[in-house]
């Protein structure tokens, strides 16, 4: 074949008209320049080796946690820019800041990025950064699998993000209901990007679920019975178990749609007796537990933050654990409330409406318990605590509107309107995002060894929370005015303009809050407030008994746990020397060895996915071979551990002032 024709054809496939919009081309050029600059910087400062050995091949949960956090913040930026684009379009009636097609792509990527590539990694960042430290373990149960999870997530995120410059973005919404997501209505590769990127990241998420479930069940320090675990560990345990049962249906839903699109199957198509409804069911059997996967870690964070900054034990520990368990069970029996209007009949609707309302009971119990924890305490208004304090009044509104949505006939009027949009942003931002940001500020000194400037943090907080209320409260009322979600623009004369203006202003205030937060991080990096004690907040749980950041083996001496808030009791009872090691007790420590296998495996998945997306089957097979090769390499590599000898441990601990004389 003529090589010139072939090249032209390839260019047309890779860069269809919708990716040649001037703004996208500008971003492409910016990204290319940024990549070259970073590459040049790394070469000039000879940091490639450092990057490879310290980060890309690491299996250390603390470093993986940091990588998750950075990736999540970048994705928060991407999703946030999408959100600002959406809000800019909606500030005035008949606005055509973006074309309808581009608007559809932007809201699709906004939802997908925020749920799967911002909230999930943010949660996993906190898991990785803290769980082993909180339970007195030296690493997670499967360190290499942990790195695989991270790289699968990272390559999934890259895959979704390159779609807008190569081939075209998905545009069927983050739920991507068939038949709209099928070839008939949605030709092009955008939807394939959506399916494959979520699939790859989803495999990583399942692996993370397995990893933390086993870590928490099997790797706890002696004495830490289940009833002595910190609530954040409980929340992580239950979240992990939710992941295990929720993600396989998503895998199936996405996989079958992919088979429809790429291999011509007839699952959710209109013809050949396909049944789009089945996708909707499978998606929400995943989707509703996913909501709790997102919010439970936030509940866990708050259950750590409130006692610490109230200097008081958590109120109603058993009720807190019980309500987490109750929510996790109930979350599987509520998925139909996402489509009461699809003709399931009154009995089904009533069942799912009531089961949804039931979730309010354990959630309400938790709300009151956090307030009672503060009762009789001494509340310090640090930045993590401010996020928690904003969470209670915000989340209670989100939860309350959730009950309103569960009242079935009411939902007939709210469904797909801006009331619904306001509700789920209210719970996901007010719950998950406030929670993970609280956790980020709380554990930041433990992760990095220096603290974030509190004054700037307070500003970021105030702007973000203020902007949040201004953005989403008007949207409830837009719903009552009949405005539905995903409208690329709207005509004048419906009375929607004023509220939309407020909402857009609020969104930009939130954006300013994010900018201040990034400034806060960068400024604090330049002017570090070193945490020399390892316990900057006067903490209660084991991670604060370690230096900041913890040495690579975490605990030179595995603690023996006697009470729920072990570090607090140690401090109260003057037992803090228990964490110190001595020449007599020090032992060599085995740690997992770094390996390039995880990043290679994920890269192979990435190559295979590109092949499937563009229908280049030779490339898909190449990717598959790469996956097998990486797995075989991992299976045969036998030197998976290194030994840190006792002398070295003792030296490190001595430098940290943690050796008994």
């Amino acid at each position, binding site marked *: 074949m003529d090589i010139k024709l072939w090249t032209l054809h390839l260019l047309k496939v890779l860069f269809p008209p919708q990716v040649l919009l001037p703004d996208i081309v500008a971003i492409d050029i910016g990204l290319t320049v940024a990549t070259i600059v970073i590459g040049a910087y790394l070469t000039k400062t000879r940091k490639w080796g450092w990057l490879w050995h310290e980060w890309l091949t690491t299996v250390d949960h603390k470093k993986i946690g940091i990588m998750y956090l950075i990736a999540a913040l970048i994705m928060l930026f991407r999703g946030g820019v999408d959100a600002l684009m959406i809000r800019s379009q909606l500030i005035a009636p008949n606005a055509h800041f973006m074309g309808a*097609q581009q608007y*559809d792509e932007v809201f699709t990527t906004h939802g997908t990025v925020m749920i799967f590539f911002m909230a999930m990694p943010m949660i996993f960042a906190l898991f990785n950064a803290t769980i082993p430290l909180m339970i007195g373990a030296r690493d997670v149960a499967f360190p290499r699998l942990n790195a695989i999870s991270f790289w699968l997530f990272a390559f999934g995120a890259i895959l979704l993000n390159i779609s807008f410059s190569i081939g075209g973005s998905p545009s069927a*919404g983050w739920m991507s*209901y*068939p038949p*709209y997501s099928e070839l008939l*209505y949605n030709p092009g590769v955008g939807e394939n990007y959506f399916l494959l990127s979520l699939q790859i990241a989803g495999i990583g998420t399942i692996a993370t679920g397995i990893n933390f479930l086993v870590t928490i069940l099997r790797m706890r320090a002696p004495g830490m019975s289940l009833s002595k675990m910190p609530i954040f560990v409980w929340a992580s345990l239950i979240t992990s178990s939710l992941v295990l049962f929720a993600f396989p249906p998503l895998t199936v839903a996405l996989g079958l749609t992919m088979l429809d699109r790429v291999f011509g199957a007839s699952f959710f198509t*209109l013809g050949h007796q396909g049944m*789009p409804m089945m996708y909707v069911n499978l998606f929400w059997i995943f989707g509703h537990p996913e909501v709790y996967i997102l919010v439970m870690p936030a509940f866990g964070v708050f259950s750590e933050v409130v006692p610490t900054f*109230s200097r*008081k*034990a*958590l*109120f*109603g520990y058993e009720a807190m654990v019980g309500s987490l368990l109750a929510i996790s069970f109930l979350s599987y029996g509520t998925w139909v409330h996402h489509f009461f*209007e*699809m*003709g399931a*009949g*009154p009995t089904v*609707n*009533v069942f799912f*409406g009531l089961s949804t*309302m039931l979730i*309010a*009971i354990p959630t*309400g119990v938790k709300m*009151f318990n956090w*307030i009672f924890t503060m009762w*009789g*305490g*001494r*509340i310090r*208004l640090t930045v993590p605590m401010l996020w928690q*304090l904003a969470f*209670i*009044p915000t989340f209670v509104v989100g939860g309350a509107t959730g*009950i*309103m949505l569960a*009242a*079935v*006939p*009411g939902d*007939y*009027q709210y*469904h*797909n309107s801006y009331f619904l949009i306001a509700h789920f942003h209210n719970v996901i931002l007010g719950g998950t995002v406030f929670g993970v940001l609280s956790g980020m500020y709380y554990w930041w000194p433990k992760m990095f060894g220096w603290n974030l400037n509190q004054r700037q943090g307070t500003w970021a907080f*105030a702007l973000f*929370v203020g902007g949040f*209320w*201004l953005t989403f*409260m008007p949207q409830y*009322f837009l719903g*009552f*005015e009949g405005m*539905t979600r*995903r409208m*690329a623009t709207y005509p004048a004369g*419906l*009375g929607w303009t004023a509220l939309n203006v407020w909402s857009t202003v609020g969104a930009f205030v939130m954006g300013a809050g994010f900018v201040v937060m990034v400034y806060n991080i960068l400024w604090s990096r330049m002017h570090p407030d070193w945490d020399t004690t390892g316990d900057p907040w006067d903490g209660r749980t084991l991670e604060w008994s370690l230096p900041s950041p913890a040495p690579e083996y975490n605990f030179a001496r595995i603690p023996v746990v006697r009470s729920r808030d072990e570090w607090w009791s140690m401090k109260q009872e003057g037992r803090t020397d228990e964490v110190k090691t001595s020449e007599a007790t020090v032992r060599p420590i085995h740690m997992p060895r770094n390996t390039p296998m995880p990043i290679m495996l994920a890269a192979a998945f990435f190559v295979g996915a590109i092949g499937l997306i563009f229908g280049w089957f030779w490339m898909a097979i190449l990717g598959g071979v790469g996956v097998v090769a990486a797995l075989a390499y991992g299976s045969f590599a036998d030197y998976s551990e290194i030994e840190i000898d006792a002398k070295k441990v003792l030296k490190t601990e001595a430098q940290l002032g943690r050796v008994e004389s």
Partner: protein
Amino acid sequence: MSPKRRIWLSGSLVALFGVLAAGCGSDYVVFHPAGPVAQSELNLIVLSTIIVGVVIVLIWVLWAYVVWRFRDTPDNKAPYWPNWNHHPLLEVFVFVFAIGALVVVAIPTVHKTYVLDRIPARHPLVIDVTSLDYKWLFQYPKQHIATVNYFYMPTNHPVLFELTARSPLSAFWAPNLGGMEYAMPNRVLPLWLEATRTGVFRGRNANFTGIDFWRMTFMVHAVPNPVFSRWVSHVQAKRHPMTRAAWLRLLRPTVTPPLQYSSYPSWTFPQRPTEFTVKGLQYVPTKKP
């Protein structure tokens, strides 16, 4: 609580009440029902808002009080109980309180869900609704007429909408008359609505179906029965039947102005509506012309 937080909080409250006050405007379509279905849904919305409003206010007040009373200042005289972590009575009270509030919402929810599923008359006016790409087709099987993007209905007479789609999943929503129902390909779902006052009401597709979905609106003209009959005869007299060519034109993904047809071929709507949920009425679909 720091002054900064207090400013934010009071600012948001003022904004909230400002918006609430504006709720009386007629733009708030959900608050201006024109028929029993929307009215019944509004009543439930109001009831549930009051109940959850009480809970919200209670928690806000308790929260503000606790944050102020137990703030960490050297001169704070409030008690400090670092180990107070249990109070069985309080925990039981919270539990009972939550259940109680829910029961108040749950009972009318159950009741209304069943009531709204039944049509209160034996002979409703039937309108077959098809969602096409970026337009709504309304067919009157008894009257043999069809319209696009608008329809007439008589007041004080229940109307049964039979919804289907030749497009991706769409949602039929005329908020003044009542809540929405999906229009799905390969299925026919029922929805009944009734207008008790005359007027022209807006309706739209509430589910994303493609780039022009936001332009997929329709107008509902609720008119007294004699006017309705006159309108029907008027359309029938137009001698402008829906031809095969016209039908194929409708299937194209375009936005069209309102149209009307004096008759239409019966195969343009699924012959055997299945999966009906109108159990109370035992509705047997009438034979289509």
